[in-house]
């Protein structure tokens, strides 16, 4: 069948970049914005992505026995400012998949917990603008024993991952550009079968997952009230194998995708703690993945946790 739920996988799971980063277009692990000290930004997000065509290896095709494969994601994301230079971020999505044709059962469930530390060690005026450099580390851990080996309808790849990212952001007036490069380590996974074929037979339930690299470039308009940006993202699996002709996809396939998209964020003038985020993207090139189109939206609310109350009732604090 086909592959692709992977859009999501790749993003959230593999690189984490994905939904999360894209959706949370403010204060995410892959943008140039930091939360103020003791600020806590949190909110729900929803995304819908689907594809009808996918790449079987490098061959683009449709599959009449899948129709349109869709993934809905309901997530909760947050960002806490330990200091202005050090933020901690998290997200945890619930994912639901479906195919419109054929007999295959969709799956649903809580996917992976994603945690990041975002550090801005360097910020300096340069020319007419300001240059910031970032270092980001993240991990993702499956939250449930969900099924990885049922692509394209699995809700994720069930791999523990760790990533390291370097990022640079340059802002001049209201215009900015941000670029980042990420290396993602992916741990082996266990599947329900105890033998499987890649390019040869393996007599084990353990699957070696190739690592991945991600490159992200974004540019646009950014001020206190608005963000409007265009994003190009490339995810490349460093290893893995192609789906053979009319075969099923497999978690350790060589999944690559290049997406282009746009994000918008609007901060309510009457209630500046609240922001609305929306965006979308489309896959323009890929391998062993769906030609996915994604739209998403979310709300974020910023709490100020600066009171020295330590543990109790911090959630009620507003700025």
């Amino acid at each position, binding site marked *: 069948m086909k592959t692709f739920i992977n859009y999501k996988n790749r993003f959230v799971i593999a690189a984490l970049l994905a939904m999360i980063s894209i959706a949370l277009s403010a204060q995410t692990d892959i943008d140039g914005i930091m939360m103020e000290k003791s600020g806590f930004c949190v909110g729900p997000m929803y995304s819908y992505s689907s594809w009808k065509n996918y790449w079987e290896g490098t061959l683009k095709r449709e599959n009449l026995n899948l129709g349109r494969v869709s993934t809905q994601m309901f997530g909760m994301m947050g960002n806490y400012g330990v200091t202005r230079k050090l933020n901690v971020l998290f997200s945890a999505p619930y994912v639901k998949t479906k195919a419109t044709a054929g007999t295959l059962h*969709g799956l649903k469930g809580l996917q992976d917990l994603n945690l990041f530390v975002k550090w801005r060690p360097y910020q300096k005026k340069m020319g007419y603008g300001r240059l910031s450099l970032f270092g980001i580390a993240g*991990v993702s851990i499956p939250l449930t024993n969900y099924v990885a080996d049922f692509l394209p309808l699995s809700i994720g790849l069930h791999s523990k991952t760790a990533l390291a990212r370097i990022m640079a952001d340059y802002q001049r007036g209201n215009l900015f550009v941000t670029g980042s490069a990420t290396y993602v380590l992916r741990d082996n996974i266990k599947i329900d079968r*105890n033998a499987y074929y890649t390019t040869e*037979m393996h007599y084990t339930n353990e699957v070696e997952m190739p690592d991945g690299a991600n490159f992200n470039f974004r540019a646009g308009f950014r001020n206190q009230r608005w963000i409007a940006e265009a994003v190009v993202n490339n995810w490349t699996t460093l290893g893995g194998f192609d789906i053979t002709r009319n075969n099923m996809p497999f978690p350790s396939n060589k999944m690559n995708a290049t997406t282009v998209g746009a994000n918008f964020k609007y901060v309510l003038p009457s209630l500046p703690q609240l922001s609305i985020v929306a965006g979308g993207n489309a896959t323009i090139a890929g391998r062993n993945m769906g030609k996915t189109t994604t739209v998403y939206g979310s709300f974020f609310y910023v709490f100020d946790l600066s009171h020295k109350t330590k543990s109790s009732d911090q959630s009620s604090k507003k700025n």
Partner: protein
Amino acid sequence: MKKILFFLIIIIEIAATLFVACNKEVEGRTDNIGALSPSNIDLNAGTWKPILLTGPTEFAVAAPAATNTADYIAQINEIKTWQADLTKDEKAIVKYWSAGAVLRWNEILRDLVAKHNLPPYQNDDGTYPFPNANNPLAYPQFPFANPPYAARAYAYVAAAQYDALVAAWYYKKLYNRPAPYVVDATLNVLIPKSDLPSYPSEDAVVEGAAVEMLKLLFPGDQDFIQQKAEEHKRARIIAGANVRSDIDAGEALGKAVAQKFVIRARGDRAGAAAGNQAQWTQMETDAIARGQIPWYSLEVPRRPPMLPLFGKVKPFLFDSLTVIALRPGPPPSTSSDEMKNETEEVFSQTSNPTRENIRICHFWSDGVGTYTPPGHWMAIAAEDFVKKNYSEVRWARNMALVAMAEMDAAIVCWDTKYYYFNPRPSQMNPAIKSLTGVPNFPSYISGHSTFSGAASTILGHIIPERANAYVAMAEEAARSRFVGGLHYNKSDCAVGLTVGKNVGNYAVQRAATDGAE
């Protein structure tokens, strides 16, 4: 709060470091098993009952040169030359092949099956192309190694190896030429020593029989097969297990015996099993005439049924009349309340599947791109046989018993499927969604259940202490098709298990009378 966060950061950093450090190498269960060291060399296996051969001497093996001849000493020196400068790769192939010839060739066959178990993609006009054995590399590649094809392949290779080894054991005992390390005690030996005469080489017999059978079964993979064959023969010489004349005589014998199986295979009616449009239509018409809803393909575009005439293939363990005698009575009528209830049962089972049921379904599904259910049972058998330290001839005999039971189970099951042409649960109720792909052939009776009933029965005879475990596995495999939404529980799975056991009993009967017990 801040402390907690810093703690969290440290945890993340540590986790990231651990990832970097972790070893990703994955080891397969049989990748590094030890060398086969038979607990009993079965010196009298030349008297065991062959499957196709009229007797062990049907193909003559010339008497070997004496071990004091210049020719033989030159062959010993060939071993010494290899051993003088062993590379890592050479040591690795010795280790790999020393685990057992029958085991490794069965694994190679499973590899080929998984590679080729891919349904052809449709033509632009919505029809489907068929693989062509005479042009195996053109798309769709030959073969489409689906479960019946695979079952037959496993059976022919194992049966040919068994017959060839019975003949080999006959000549081993007759000529009684000792192994090279017995002749020359200074020889370095990389495998366990054995009292078994080494002419002709049992490894080369197994290799020769496999190579010859696989020319027919996987004609497009000859480079891969030949490479394995060369490696296997070389491994035995490098190891000091055989001299070249042991190998040459064994390979020739294996090939000659396999030729007899190739001739049988060409005439066993499998070549016509795909049928044609008129025959497919006739089956549908017959079902309608019986007042039943006929099966139809749930694929888009509708795919011709998989090997509808495979039920006519010539079995190994009984004759074609017995195939019909083993065919179970009809399933509940498609218009009956019973069928309605069974369909409803599948729907309620699959509408909100538990994680455990998904696991069971996926563990046993053995669908597209896998070694198929018969291959799964070959793997189960092989991994248990490894622990038994059988001689190669007993290995081959036991694998052949399992494989022939699987092939004959495929024949009886396919005969039943196309005789009744019964619809799948998802056809009766399109709201039923499956946890793995719905196979493209009629429902009654479940193939997985039939294969599992047959395999568990003969395996329980071969390894009695595991009999209950095999029964439990077979029951789970059968159940996996119900909880996965592919089959009705009572009619398809339960009847399939019973029919499979009946087939398996024929293998048990043969086992009890073949002289090996």
